[in-house]
């Protein structure tokens, strides 16, 4: 049985702009990194979403893209490698009125954190998860990730790993994510629109963002030309979405699936005071 989570009515401000979500911290990213586009799109989206910075929490793991929380003015949590989703899950369940957004990369989310990705989709807590997928481990200087092509040559796997990449959107759909989309980092405005829709959508929203790594995958800059925009037909039919993404070109952007699974909630439990709980331990022959 799916249960509804009762979130407190959140305040909405129409006067917020991208600048309200900037921090003074200088990104460590390489000049030309796709993640700059994602940061800007997210700042725009947060402004459009209307929740002020102090009511937003950005949670991340480890990797280039996981540095993002410090580059915004929101609350942030930069945790350990691969564990951003459980941190965000705990935070959102403890504080349902907050806008909680999870950010990270393909190694963090699909490899070391793969188990949490699957279960976050299945659990359907009202989070937005943005993966900046550059198909490479950038911070450790160029190793293949779960989305890297099988024949991509690298020092650690000369001639390629020989293992096919997986499709993150297909996995998200199969595992039960309630909103699945793919964006392109350099299409800032369309990406911002996708992110706003993801934040507004109840349940677990997953946005895979193709984010070129200019340093270790310079050929990914060609995505700018190759990406097919508006080629995706949004559906609320999970099977149809599944059929559309299986084996399809990954270089397509747009909202793939918008479902109606109720977000994760909690069974209603009759309130009890501590006195009643303490009393469970008492054996009293006089009673």
């Amino acid at each position: 049985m799916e249960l509804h989570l009762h979130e407190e009515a959140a305040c909405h401000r129409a006067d917020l702009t991208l600048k309200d979500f900037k921090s003074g911290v200088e990104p460590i990213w390489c000049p030309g990194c796709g993640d700059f586009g994602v940061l800007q799109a997210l700042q725009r989206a947060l402004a459009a979403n209307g929740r002020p910075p102090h009511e937003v929490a950005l949670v991340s793991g480890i990797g280039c893209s996981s540095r993002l929380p410090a580059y915004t003015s929101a609350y942030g949590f930069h945790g350990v490698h691969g564990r951003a989703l459980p941190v965000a899950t705990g935070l959102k369940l403890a504080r349902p009125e907050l806008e909680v957004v999870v950010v990270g990369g393909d190694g963090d989310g699909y490899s070391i954190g793969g188990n949490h990705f699957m279960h976050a989709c299945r659990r359907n807590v009202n989070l937005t998860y943005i993966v900046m997928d550059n198909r490479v481990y950038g911070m450790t200087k160029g190793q293949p990730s779960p989305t890297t092509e099988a024949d991509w040559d690298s020092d650690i796997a000369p001639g390629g790993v020989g293992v096919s990449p997986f499709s993150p959107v297909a996995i998200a759909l199969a595992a039960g994510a309630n909103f699945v989309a793919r964006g392109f980092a350099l299409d800032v405005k369309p990406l911002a629109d996708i992110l706003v829709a993801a934040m507004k959508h109840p349940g677990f929203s997953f946005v895979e963002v193709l984010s070129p790594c200019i340093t270790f995958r310079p050929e990914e800059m060609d995505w700018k030309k190759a990406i097919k925009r508006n080629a995706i037909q949004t559906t609320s039919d999970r099977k149809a979405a599944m059929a559309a993404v299986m084996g399809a070109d990954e270089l397509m952007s747009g909202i793939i699936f918008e479902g109606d699974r109720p977000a994760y909630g909690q069974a209603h439990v009759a309130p009890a005071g501590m006195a009643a709980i303490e009393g469970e331990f008492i054996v009293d022959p006089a009673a």
Partner: protein
Amino acid sequence: MRSSIAICFAGSGGAGAITAGSTFLQAAARAGYYGLMTKLSGAQVRGGEAAALVEIGVEPLDAQPDRFDVLIALDWDNVGKFAPEVPMDSASIVLADPAAGKPAEAIIATGARLVDFPLAQLASDVKGRGNMIALGAAAALAGIDSGAVEQSIRDLIGAKGEAAIAASLAAVAAGAEAAQSIDSDIRLRPGHPGRRWFGSGNEAIGLGALRGGVRFVAAYPITPATEITEWLAPRMGAVGGRAMLAEDEIAAINMAVGASFGGVPSMTVTSGPGLSLKVETIGLAISAEIPLVIVDVMRVGPSTGIPTKSDQGDLDLALTGTHGDAPRIVLAPMSIADCALTTERAVHLAEALQTPVFVLSDQSLGQTQTIIDEPTRRAEPMTRAMESDKSGADFRRYQPTADNVSPMPAPGVEGRQWVAEGLSHDEFGHPSNAARFHVAGLNKRRDKLENHDYGDIWGEVTGEGETVIVAFGSSVGPVKEAARRLREQDVAIKVVGLRLLAPIPKKQIADAIEGARRVIVVEQNHTGQLYRHLLGAKALPAEAESLARPGPAPFRPGEIAAHIA
């Protein structure tokens, strides 16, 4: 008349040995006695053999008994496997149905007196069950009032209706009647009926967490800790909190860390293998200064070890587990009742000092049920510092303070946004590789723990003597019972039970062992982990001795007394 007795109910799975034991213990509580009950089961998930080891007495009991007075075998199917855990001698009696076949060889070898007791026939005569015949016999041998037995049956199976109650009561009466002819003198002195507290260590940890203010718990199933989360799950909801079943151990601790970052006192619960998986995130919580309670109900390790048996071998892991220099607070409850107090205090310390706090319990404390006087001691609440007079560019999450604890506003507070950071960071929380910030952070996190006044939570000293035994956790009970017996032989013993294992309460230990001629550290693990910990910090004299013995066999007072004497 006796002041305490020990009875074992045993049989194949489904025979009802555990129900007989639980009802016997409840009846004893109603009749004004104190008690302990340990459950044993075979390796099978369901079915297989089971035994309830029950000790009851007119005074509170600190330890498992050295020997058993009575074993009641509901049948002999594999019951012999329990023989090493049910020590008996020629003064013990074994009640068994001749129709159930030949008693187990290992039981015969103890020299206990075998008494033919036709359980099946008696049960069939009254259309009842053999385990209730056994209960009636045990209550009669112990001299427990039949009214107390009846009330306990009503409490436990009342929901099944009057017919079921009547059948059980008839069987209890038949068992008691049949026991009249048994030549035995184990009747207890009269008890002192009054309010008693009845529960296990695992339940007490749950209670302490709620008392302390924990409103978020996340865990992954693991023996022997799961019952804590199962106990908390419905009650957490009832007090407005949440209990989460995580997809794995690492997710569980990260969920708890996330909830705590959100301003809600949080806890994760596990046993050794799970703690091994959690250590990276423990380092994060230490570095980012996130309050968190981590409960480890220790079992025999390493690796999968013996999941259902007790050991104190996770101390090294709790003290040092994670990379880098990462000081933490480690507490260990020294009795079942103390599980509640220690956990409550752990929550306060975690919140007040913004750091992970360990509660090191073990299978023996966790899964033993006890009858004690209602514990009244409570810890004075301490809470998280969330307020700051600074905001905007002036707000520094890790600003230096006199007590090294900095303001930690929760998300939602305007103008004080900060980023919890596992990277070495400056006072604002911004990542930095600079040596001065890194060293300042190490000093801050060390000093806030070292300089805190832990008050009387550090431990408890009982008795006086030039021989001092230092112990922690579930070893304290048998040590205290051993000391009591030695005092009866005019050997003066002082017992120092340590609740605070890190930071080491060096001054309190020094005061407690001043003038001692002999100091012995007693613990249930193979390498003397507490002994090495205290000796390494020069908290003990170089000539201090170690009595370290691993699980799975429980520490018995006689074993400790024999070592000391």
